[in-house]
């Protein structure tokens, strides 16, 4: 049924990846108050991620799992504590602001709340022109206006809206402005952090179609951060599932949804309310995500894990990802393929 026969992931055998992140760890200092020699919160722990040009990689997990921190770290909006980020063949992990500037053009972000990410005093045209000015991408005023109108057209906004302010737009229109701003600098990689979560259902489909068009027409790579599994399944080539800062499972989308291997992924999929009325209620995951300030020793998921026969290591050392099938990795000691 797929409309796209040539898939991003099939072509990455020879071509170098667009983005390669290795062992990324992000820590935030916490509690460094008056008396405290505060500790640190490990938002992202030892995460690897590789993206090919034009690939859409879904990153799912519950609030506080570190998915937004990872997205921001990849764009160098948050400093990494450890690890290495290579983007378009260049190590950008420790680049300072000035050499980073041209690279920032190639990697952009779309935020969840377009209301909060747009300057309320800028018109649509000014908002979209701003990145063109900052990166000196238009030789003169006329060229800039032309480019702004082009961009508005690319994201499906009527040019009549150019003079409007954000509060005069609907949520969907504002999010299109956010997309136009990201596109203005001609990026190759976009981190989209919950880009449709704040939108009404009837408008979500419009935005998802727009993102999919951009991906296929411009060969844009996306890290698509979302808690909405339906949307991720629809849009992404590959999916990583995050829990308490770590990737616990990663697979091609169809595999992940049809044959999830990690007990947490399985629970997430079961928890998704079915659109079939009267579908039997399945067993629920009990308990809650532990605080990242005080993560459990061993596997981060062990306090909620429904697996009954578990090796002792679960309670002692966090498992790393291990291959359990074609393009499929899981971090679970109880998995039959996990090397003992």
């Amino acid at each position, binding site marked *: 049924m797929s409309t796209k026969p040539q898939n991003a992931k099939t072509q990455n055998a020879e071509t170098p990846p667009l983005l390669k992140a290795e062992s990324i760890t992000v820590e935030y200092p916490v509690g460094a108050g008056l008396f405290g020699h505060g500790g640190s919160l490990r938002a992202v722990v030892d995460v690897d991620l590789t993206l090919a040009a034009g690939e859409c990689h879904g990153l799912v997990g*519950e609030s506080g799992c570190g998915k937004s921190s990872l997205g921001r770290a990849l764009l160098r909006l948050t400093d990494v504590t450890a690890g290495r980020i290579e983007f378009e063949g260049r190590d950008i992990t420790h680049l300072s602001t000035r050499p980073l500037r041209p690279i920032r053009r190639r990697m952009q972000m779309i935020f969840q709340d377009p209301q909060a990410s747009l300057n309320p005093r800028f018109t649509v045209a000014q908002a979209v022109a701003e990145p063109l000015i900052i990166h000196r991408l238009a030789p003169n005023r006329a060229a800039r206006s032309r480019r702004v109108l082009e961009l508005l057209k690319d994201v499906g906004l009527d040019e009549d809206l150019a003079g409007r302010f954000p509060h005069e737009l609907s949520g*969907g229109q504002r999010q299109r402005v956010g997309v136009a701003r990201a596109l203005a600098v001609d990026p190759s990689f976009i981190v989209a952090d919950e880009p449709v979560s704040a939108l009404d259902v*009837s408008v979500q*489909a419009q935005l998802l179609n727009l993102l*999919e068009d951009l991906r296929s027409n411009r060969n844009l790579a996306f890290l698509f951060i979302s*808690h909405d599994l339906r949307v991720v399944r*629809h849009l992404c080539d590959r999916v990583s599932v995050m829990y308490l800062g770590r990737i616990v499972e990663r697979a091609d989308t169809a595999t992940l949804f049809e044959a999830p291997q990690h007990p947490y992924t399985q629970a997430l999929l079961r*928890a998704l*309310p079915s*659109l079939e009325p009267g579908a039997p209620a399945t067993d629920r995951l009990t308990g809650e995500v532990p605080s990242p300030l005080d993560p459990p020793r061993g596997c981060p998921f062990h306090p909620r894990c429904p697996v009954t026969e578990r090796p002792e290591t679960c309670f002692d050392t966090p498992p790393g990802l291990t291959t359990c099938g074609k393009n499929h990795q899981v971090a679970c000691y109880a998995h039959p393929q996990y090397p003992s």
Partner: protein
Amino acid sequence: MGDHETSGPLLEVEDLSCEFLTEAGPARAVDEVSFTVARGETVGLVGESGCGKSATALALMGLLPHRAGRVAGGAIRFDGEEMLRLSEKRRRDLRGNRLAMVFQEPMTALNPVMVAGEQVAEVLRRHRDMSRKAAWEKTVSLFEDVGIPAPAQRVRDYPHQLSGGMRQRVVIAMAIACEPALLIADEPTTALDVTIQAQILELLRSLQLRTGLSILLITHDLGVVAQLCDRVLVMYAGQIVETAPVGALFEAPRHPYTVGLLRSMPRPGSGDRTRLPEIPGNVPPITARPTGCHFADRCDRTKARCQDHPPLLDALGPDHHARCHFPVTSPQD
């Protein structure tokens, strides 16, 4: 409290209209909405932001913002009583007692400087005239009922010491403290993670089985509706545009808006990565609603008649109504 009517629907809303004051004058947020909720029934009120679903709930509770909003007409009969004619005192006696509400964001529904248990105990003392000790003991058992682990300790926690899921359980404990006949739940799981959402939905379901309470569930999430509701009301731009038993609504929706909503949700097997069917355009703002059918400008079935003749909510099947001149007859239609 013995002599409540036992026949007839628990809640009957008839031609309810609500207005809000806007810069452009009064605007009709809720436009002649009529529906019923039977005893023990769960009714879903679905729609997008600004469709009037929360305003309807606030009107039912008598909690429309003072001055800015008002009921402009209609009737609300709850358990045989005409709510809109009640004194404010009688309404207060009903609220939190026979009629309770759960809001989307539990943090705003809880007092941050009062321990969680005290907030529930207060409700019991107010409505049940319980002693401090009895109310506190009942609170601990309510915490247990809503699945809060170590209830005897958690009752002493302040809201900020509890997780989002636990806070929502406290709010639910508060709502069910006096065994209400009707629980109005406005997006009770929207702020929660999906595994916690599943737990809260399960809790609502089991409470209902145990106590037989009626639930009016307000949500934008069709998945939640499919899981929990017996009957569904779909609202669009201030009006109910379709009502049906949950099975019929998902299998054979008749209003083009409902059809569009259901189609636009990505589903497994619908052809991953293909284009999603869109509903074009945007919800009309409350101050500029069309004179004819409110959905006409976004509808792919629009004809001239839709532009100037407002359609009525017509009966199309058993307990199935749609507000459309040209209702959809089959999924392929």
